[in-house]
């Protein structure tokens, strides 16, 4: 057999098969079967009738949405002022915002925990707030970077053209800069929202005992309920797929030239 470039993909194909496709198949099989191995839709029905799982889904969604919103509100002005600043060493300034990513995540959260304890007295008073703060702190760089990149490579003549045609500074931002930066915002949201939906380590470390999707799956598996846990994983996967498809579509739109 002659060696061709295709064969270079073999290790990855094997990896994909063993660690992605196979587990996925197992999850699907488990999700739609009962403990005796008979196919059933009961797990599916249970998920959408159990107030406990639905409540957790809702809590996770709200937490992720608020975290994303907080990140966006902090990141956009930062990215904007960085991208349009006249400072020569912009990359150094950007680095300052990215730097926390280099520090071990456990260390970072432990430090945050101490700080919050100092401010609030007891972390248990504000579990939701603490989770939002912790996750925003953790994910902020993932929001700044894509928005910064998008704004930075934006042709300045678009803004000049808008101003030339009579737009004031604020109108230029509203009608040109903001719409043209949407692709960056969308990928920023995807980078923050998806991990925020599933990440439960932050909650864990900040003593928030409320379950979110990630911890819920963990609890099912810990109780040997493989079938119920698999169904929750599958629903979560479906939600993520849906969101990725949506954000992927809107990312292409500015190139197509239609109004967003």
């Amino acid at each position, binding site marked *: 057999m002659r060696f061709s470039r295709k064969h270079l993909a073999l290790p990855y194909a094997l990896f994909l098969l063993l660690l992605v496709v196979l587990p996925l198949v197992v999850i699907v099989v488990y999700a739609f079967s009962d403990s005796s191995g008979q196919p059933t839709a009961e797990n599916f029905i249970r998920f959408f009738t159990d107030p406990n799982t639905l409540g957790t889904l809702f809590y996770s969604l709200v937490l992720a949405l608020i975290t994303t919103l907080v990140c966006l509100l902090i990141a956009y002005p930062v990215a904007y002022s960085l991208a349009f600043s*006249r400072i*020569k060493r912009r990359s150094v300034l950007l680095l300052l915002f990215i730097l926390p990513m280099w520090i071990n995540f456990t260390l970072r959260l432990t430090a945050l925990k101490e700080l919050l304890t100092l401010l609030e007295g007891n972390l248990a008073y504000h579990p939701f707030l603490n989770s939002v703060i912790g996750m925003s702190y953790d994910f902020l760089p993932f929001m700044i970077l894509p928005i910064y990149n998008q704004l930075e490579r934006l*042709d300045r*003549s*678009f803004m*000049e*053209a*808008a*101003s*030339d*045609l*009579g*737009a*004031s500074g604020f*109108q230029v931002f509203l*009608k*040109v800069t903001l*719409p*043209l930066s949407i692709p960056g915002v969308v990928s920023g949201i995807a980078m923050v929202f998806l991990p925020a939906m599933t990440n439960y380590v932050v909650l864990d470390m900040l003593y928030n005992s409320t379950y979110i999707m990630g911890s819920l799956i963990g609890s099912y598996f810990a109780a040997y309920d493989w079938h119920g846990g698999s169904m929750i994983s599958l629903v979560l996967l479906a939600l993520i797929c849906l969101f990725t498809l949506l954000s992927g579509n809107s990312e292409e*739109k*500015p*190139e*197509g*030239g*239609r*109004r*967003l």
Partner: protein
Amino acid sequence: MSEYIIELKDVLRRFEDDGSVAVRDFNLQVRRGEFVTFLGPSGCGKTTTLRMIAGFDLPTEGQILLDGKDITSLPPNKRPINTVFQRYALFPHMNIYENIAFGLKLKKLPREEVEKKVKRVLDLVDLEGFESRSVSTLSGGQQQRIAIARALVNEPEILLLDEPLGALDLKMRKEMQIELKAMHQQLGITFIYVTHDQEEALTMSDKIVVMNRGSIQQVGTPEDIYNEPKNAFVADFIGESNIFKGIMTGKLKCRFCGGEFECMDDVDEGSLVDVVVRPEDVILSEPEKGTVEGLVTAVTFKGMHYEITVESGKYEMVIVSTKAQKVGDKVGMSLEPDGIHIMLAEDHTTSFTASVMKDYSVMYNGQVIACDLTKLLPGSRLDADAQELRDASGELVDPESLKVQISIAPGDIEMSDDADAGLTRGRIINLIYKGDHYCYVIRTEHGHDLIVDDEYLWNMGDQVSLILPEEKMSFALLK
């Protein structure tokens, strides 16, 4: 109402970050309805000047007046001026209608009026019915037209165009040139156009502003600029031209290119001048019938004509002719007086090229010239014992790769009748009395005509030795 729609007074633009000056001493008055072109090589400051008129850049010093009113620091959105950008800058998130209506909607015009105006301006640029198309479906030429439409729909007092045709192919560019000119005549508004293409500038403009290194070189009609360039830069930049250093040898007589020619510009005898000869003005003839004789060294067929290069002594003349010549043939060259354009020279330094020997000494005409190569190559070191010159990064410099250009001003050259006293020898072919000294033209043994000022009287035809004092020389490395 002021006579001038826009006026720039002593405008200077210095960039804060590196202190470089992009535009200096810029004074210009533009009449209502004129088509003015800023012409110059890239980096000459033409776009910066345009950006200051648009309001994207602010002058460091000076004033910009619009219709007599100071608008120097008015933001772009408050100026009745619109710009067509180099790469169009059409908003990709809007369709054609929204792009063109952008300015009108900001003015809160009623919807019907906006629609009417957009339609009218799309008619003007020949793209009727394109309203709902998206920007990305348009060709470069169509995007160009939309960019013009988007600017014109606001009925600006001045339309600025920053190299708008640069991205189009040749045929398209020619078409757009004609259309832009027609639009200008139809609309009657002032156009300020930036280009580095001299042909484009000559075709379209009422007035051309030639710029170089941030300052205006000449302002005039296309005919003025072409026929009467003010200095060597303008002559060289506009059209093909041969430029020679010359000297006025009598009333309406000028010596250059190894010959004496009659001319029409009345310049004082003895003045040092730059002479411009357009390639199409040179008359080729039998060798003995021309004012100067030369050897054909290259002939290139250009479609409409031949481009012929003739070498005469140290001089080279490029000639455009409909008749072909053979390489190696001897020809005579002559000029009608009106084919010669004379400009007072700013700088008449003589330059010649010397070679570098194996021991890194500089040699010209068999004589060593004291020239410190380490000063010309920053950071280099010369090891005298090993005879090795190493550059800043420690690489050994190959002496054969170096050539040194030696420059010296005419007043610094001395003459001697001791044949071996000087660096080179020559024969006096012209002498002009200039009141307190004589000015000589000396044909060197290498065929160069040098100009030498001397207070003593020599005779025509005298053989002299030319002393070039080393301390008066300036050196430069040739790449």
